[in-house]
């Protein structure tokens, strides 16, 4: 029981992050649909963001905005650094998604499908080595 509390319960943030990350990973690798792959990638990235944010959490901590009253009442602040990092990382994730979506749109125009296996099949018909 003690083991359970120390390893699972006290670190539940960590286990949630792993489960989410694995769902995303499965989506990336196993899904055939390119949009679903992108969604998987987003879940994957979000899992890591959640892990970072949970690093910043402090028991009983308030939002990291300096305020006289909060100091007087003796509250503690949450760690602002992961938030700073993750704001940057979220933008990166948005940018990656945008580029990925535009690639999928272009592929849909070229091949008329967004299923990866069908695209590979069409490429195989056209000759993988021959391009234009």
């Amino acid at each position, binding site marked *: 029981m003690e083991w359970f509390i120390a390893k699972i319960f006290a670190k539940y943030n960590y286990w949630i992050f792993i489960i989410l990350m694995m769902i995303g990973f499965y989506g990336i690798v196993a899904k055939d649909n390119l949009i679903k792959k992108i969604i998987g990638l987003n879940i994957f990235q979000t899992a890591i963001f959640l892990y970072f944010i949970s690093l910043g959490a402090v028991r009983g901590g308030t939002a990291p905005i300096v305020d006289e009253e909060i100091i007087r009442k003796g509250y503690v602040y949450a760690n602002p650094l992961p938030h700073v990092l993750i704001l940057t990382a979220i933008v990166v994730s948005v940018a990656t998604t945008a580029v990925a979506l535009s690639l999928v749109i*272009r592929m849909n125009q070229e091949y008329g499908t967004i299923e990866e296996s069908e695209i*590979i099949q069409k490429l195989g018909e056209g000759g993988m080595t021959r391009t234009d």
Partner: protein
Amino acid sequence: MLSFVEHLPVLVVVISLLSAITIFITGWINKKTAWYISTATLLSQFISSIFILHHVMTVGPIRYRLGGWVPPWGIEYVMDALNAYVLVILLFLGLVCVIYSKRNIDHELPDKGVSFYTVYQLLITGLCGITVTGDIFNMYVFIEITSLSAYALIASRGKIALKASFTYLVLGSIGACFFLLGIGFLYSVTGSLNIHDLSLLLPPLYGNRVVLAAFVFFIVGLSIKMALFPLHTWLPDAHAFAPAEISAMLSGIIIEISTYAFIRVAFSVFTARFLQSLPVFDILCWLAAAAIIIGSVLAISQTNLKRMLAYSSVANMGYIVLALGLSISARKAPWGGLNPSMMHILNHALMKGCLFLVAGAFIYKADLWEIRDFRGLGRRMPYTCAAFVIAALSMIGIPPSVGFVSKLYIILASIEAKKFFFVPVLLLSSLLNLIYFWRVIETMYMKRVEGKDSAHTSHELHLQKEEIPLGMLAPIWVLASLCVIMGILWLANIPIPLLNQINSTFGLGGIR
């Protein structure tokens, strides 16, 4: 008071960024300006990088505190010998490629010049940023800038490149996420992000499982980015179907910069002592040996020149990683420590840059992709083909070319480290290189054009006495001649003091 040179590392990055924005705005008014702005910027960046290298060699490392905050509290730029050396290589190849691209982009992406050069300049920004930074999260941000612009540039030719780019995007994002996760793990146990600071805080925590896992994630993430053997699957298509100068940049610089990031993480964040306590670098050596053999064998089976070169890149990453893996056991002067891997980073940039630019020239002139279509090319494009032959001989390892020097030193390093297995691997790879490059050279020079009634006739005639424009030929020849000149310089041990300084930064090498 900071001297001007101390401002240069940040200015190299910021000028590139500002030029990207300026290209974007002036391109709206006049498309023609894009190339000129890009070239001027790269030229000034290249000159500043030489100043930085000179300063680092004579005065010592530059430490630049962005925003005025002292390192653990703010972001820091550190320029030591390793950074400065890589920065010079990267900006040199960037400059050569942008000069080459003037005619090629007009031909390949006629209406997209402005956005192409903007993204290209952003790519250079990202690469410079990775190189100069001394903060690990900052490195992640710049890795993402590099990767995003690389995805877009690869896909810009459309068709099959889109699929290649998408694969690269998915794998590259996973790699970057692993890198981010590694940062998260390190942050959770040390509370720091600065590379130098981490290297001080980590030694008491080397047994910590979180630190070990962080190291694994760094290795796996960056291996994806640098296309180490089992994770190389994105590379051949991405390199083969990008525009020529982007192929040259991808193969010559981008994967090497990932290797640089790897070296930074392995030797600056963690230390040689940590690496010696783990069998990681032995495993890397074996993976690299597999990469060399399998990359070369797959290159032989290709019929498309650029795909062949791309597989050859996989093999060449194998050389760099093999040299890296030997770096903690080999210690003697010219080949000890990081020397061979550093050498091969430069050498590969020169050789593969040249080869990809030549391959692009064939596509530019006559839309030739397949090796079997190259018949009689040696007579039609004599100068281009001669450059190709020089670079190819260099890849095979004919003295005194650069390829010979790298292979020689890697062999000597593996003999010193008593890992004799890698000697036959390298010799075999030379033989395999010979096979696949000889095939191309033979087709170019030896094979006669068959009867005039063949289907190829029309464009064979079109090829008659046609040489590519000087703006494309000059960069190719600069790289090809450097393949020989640098080889002689390496053999004369002239740039070796620079590499020794890199080794002494990390406590490698040692015996002189």
